[in-house]
């Protein structure tokens, strides 16, 4: 297996789902069972992804494989290229995307089986997988943007898949529009990069930055570029303040929520930020960390009170993504990616588990009508529980390690820079996460059934739906990432597979602990690694144990609280909510974000247009009328001027081309000899012109 082989297989991984999409869409109406082709294609893709990941991680673990072809040339020096960058993150992400996509395909076979647009659904899944793979594989920001938009499109199609429901088509529109807001920023960032460096390739951009070339020659604009690019991530990864679309996106089919709105697409924003990590300055990282912190905290508080099973998971997704973004902002590069992968698995498991519950309950989503399902859905319950343990950060799960790493980093960050806020919020969110997740588990699966009728009819889902749950729950166990159940730092995932980030932002713009000290190790922009300063390593080392213990205590107490409230009912929840009613309603109504945006941006736009209309009608007209009344003569005069001169000029310009055309077409008399005389005449003129 050579590098070319890896590239070829990656090409196949990229394009196979597209083939599936085209075939399924074209033949969807003619052949009822064409979806099986799409499922088959995804299975092949999955095997290819496993194969490529295996080869890359075992034989080429230290290599970055880059393949580029020229797309077209803009000028001698500027050519637009298409290309792949295959490093360890790429193959791991390819595996994650292919696996979850394939599992969602299997799951959907049963879940969607009564849908009239069955085949089209599978086709959409195919185009989504294609675009997602494109984002993962690309080595340049232009392709990233193209696939980014394609992902947005397929997400729109899938959210609004049941477009007969108004809420679904509204949610699709909302997702699309909110995402555009972020993409405008990203596009501006891309333009700045292209204008400065004449290339889209990450590699060359980092190279030029490391060589000292900055946008508009200023640190400020480098920071701005980072923030603008990150705006794309704010939209796609549903970060504060653009997080409002994700909960609404739950209107789409549940397997879609698992694939797109939990595991893969929303992670694309984080992936983008990981890819541009090298050019982020300390200021940009601080911005990112703050956005991440807010996105981690606010949705976590909302998730505490939600009653729709998918809404709870949606807010938890936003919160966890915020966690990742915050971690990236404080420099926990490796743990961010670790959490991204771990989260993809356990959140997909949770969503598919909720899908299984919803399927068993005949499309009931309100947890207040569930309860006691543990006995009816034992496998769903077991896998759901494992994933819940993982997301809460209980030992022996992947989530424990990734979360622990992030919390330790926030601890270290606090001790190095004095900004303890990230650590505090991080631990608070960990507590809340454990609480609301166990609240969800207890209300749904424990206790007595609340809707006896539906409970009676509930039964465990078929094998194609349960199997994905088992696989995903299995991947939430620590053993896949590290052999040591208490410390992942030495495990292969962190220490072998993930290289340290390559930083290229100028030294003086970085955080102190990320600066290159004199005599520090290698600096090779393309392959080298810059280790963080020793003080950081020490701080991380010191932070590790306290962070782990504190995180564990908080997770267990969150769990305990949930048990006290909902399982053992030691404290009456209703009374408690009465006691803190304002807070409760505030959370229940999602901090009134939707209302706020409706009142401000939506109403603002409408109001602004009304204002303009009013201004036009009252002020402008009033002034004109007044002026007209006062100086009637003059206004008559200006009126005449308007009519004759201004309108004349406008009309003249508008019809000038038409007139000229009409005149010139008269040359075409239809008589051959007129033509010939004109020709001879022109020849004489031409001879006269070039008479030298």
């Amino acid at each position: 297996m050579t590098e070319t082989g890896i590239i070829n297989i990656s090409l196949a991984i990229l394009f196979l789902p597209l083939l599936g999409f085209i075939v399924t869409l074209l033949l969807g109406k003619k052949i009822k069972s064409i979806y099986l082709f799409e499922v088959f294609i995804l299975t092949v893709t999955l095997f290819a992804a496993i194969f490529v990941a295996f080869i890359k991680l075992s034989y080429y673990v230290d290599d970055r494989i880059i393949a580029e072809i020229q797309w077209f040339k803009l000028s001698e020096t500027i050519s637009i290229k298409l290309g792949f960058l295959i490093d360890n993150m790429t193959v791991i992400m390819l595996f994650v995307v292919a696996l979850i996509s394939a599992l969602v395909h299997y799951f959907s076979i049963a879940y969607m089986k009564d849908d009239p647009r069955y085949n089209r659904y599978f086709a959409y899944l195919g185009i989504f997988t294609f675009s997602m793979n494109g984002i993962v594989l690309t080595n340049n920001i232009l392709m990233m943007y193209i696939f980014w938009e394609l992902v947005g499109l397929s997400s729109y199609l899938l959210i609004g898949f049941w477009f007969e429901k108004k809420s679904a088509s509204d949610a699709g529109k909302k997702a699309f529009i909110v995402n555009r807001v972020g993409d405008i920023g990203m596009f501006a960032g891309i333009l700045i990069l292209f204008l400065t460096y004449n290339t889209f390739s990450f590699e060359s951009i980092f190279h030029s930055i490391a060589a000292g070339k900055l946008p508009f020659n200023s640190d400020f604009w480098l920071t701005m570029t980072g923030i603008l690019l990150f705006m794309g991530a704010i939209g796609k990864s549903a970060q504060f303040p653009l997080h409002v679309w994700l909960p609404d996106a739950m209107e789409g089919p549940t397997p879609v929520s698992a694939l797109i709105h939990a595991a893969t697409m929303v992670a694309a924003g984080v992936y983008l930020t990981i890819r541009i990590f090298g050019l982020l300055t300390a200021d940009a990282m601080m911005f990112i960390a703050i956005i991440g912190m807010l996105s981690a905290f606010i949705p976590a508080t909302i998730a505490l009170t939600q009653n729709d099973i998918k809404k709870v998971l949606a807010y938890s997704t936003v919160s966890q993504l915020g966690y990742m973004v915050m971690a990236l902002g404080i420099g926990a590069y490796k743990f961010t990616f670790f959490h991204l992968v771990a989260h993809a698995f356990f959140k997909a498991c949770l969503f598919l588990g909720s899908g299984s519950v919803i399927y068993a309950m005949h499309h009931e989503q309100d947890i207040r009508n569930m309860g006691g399902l543990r006995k009816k859905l034992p496998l769903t319950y077991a896998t759901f529980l494992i994933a819940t343990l993982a997301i809460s950060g209980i030992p022996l799960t992947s989530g424990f390690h990734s979360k622990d790493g992030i919390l330790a980093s926030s601890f270290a960050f606090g001790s190095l820079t004095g900004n303890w806020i990230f650590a505090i919020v991080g631990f608070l969110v960990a507590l809340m996460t454990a609480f609301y997740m166990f609240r969800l588990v207890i209300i749904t699966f424990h206790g007595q059934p609340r809707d006896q009728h539906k409970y009676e009819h509930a039964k465990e889902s078929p094998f194609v739906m349960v199997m994905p749950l088992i696989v995903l729950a299995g991947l939430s166990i620590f053993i896949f990432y590290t052999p040591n159940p208490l410390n992942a730092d030495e495990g292969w995932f962190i220490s072998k597979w993930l290289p340290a980030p390559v930083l290229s932002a100028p030294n003086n713009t970085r955080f102190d602990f990320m600066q290159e000290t004199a005599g520090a190790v290698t600096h090779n922009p393309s392959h080298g690694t810059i280790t963080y300063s020793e003080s950081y390593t020490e701080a991380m080392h010191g932070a590790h144990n306290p962070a782990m213990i504190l995180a564990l205590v908080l997770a267990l107490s969150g769990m305990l609280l949930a048990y006290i409230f909902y399982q053992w009912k030691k404290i009456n929840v209703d009374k408690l909510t009465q006691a803190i009613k304002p807070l409760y309603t505030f959370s229940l109504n999602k901090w009134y974000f939707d209302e706020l945006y409706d009142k401000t941006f939506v109403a603002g736009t409408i109001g602004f247009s009304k204002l303009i209309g009013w201004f036009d009608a009252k002020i402008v007209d009033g002034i004109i009328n007044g002026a007209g009344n006062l100086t009637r003569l003059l206004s008559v005069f200006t009126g005449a001027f308007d009519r004759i001169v201004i309108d004349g000029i406008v009309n003249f310009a508008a019809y000038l081309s038409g007139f000229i055309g009409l005149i010139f077409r008269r040359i075409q008399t239809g008589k051959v000899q007129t033509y010939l005389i004109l020709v001879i005449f022109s020849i004489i003129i031409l001879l006269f012109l070039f008479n030298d």
Partner: protein
Amino acid sequence: MNIPIEYYLILSAFMFFVGVAGVLTRRNAIIVFMSIELMLNSANLTLVTFSSYLGNSIGQLFVFFVMTVAAADAAVGLAIIIAIFRNKLTVNIDEINILKW
């Protein structure tokens, strides 16, 4: 006997312009077409002249080709004129002007 090359060239140029003038002024499609043939023949005369004065046979060869092509041209041209005559009962090219503007 040695006629200077200029005489031939001037004659052929004259023929060429007679042809052009004929195309421009005559109204009968057949005569216009004959004038075009005259232009081709003036070219033939030039070719033969050069061929003979340069002692180089390419020109004569070319003349054969031009004559063949002109014959094909004539066949097609006359066929077109016949077709138009059947439809409109005229070959006056001033009256053949449905297509204009």
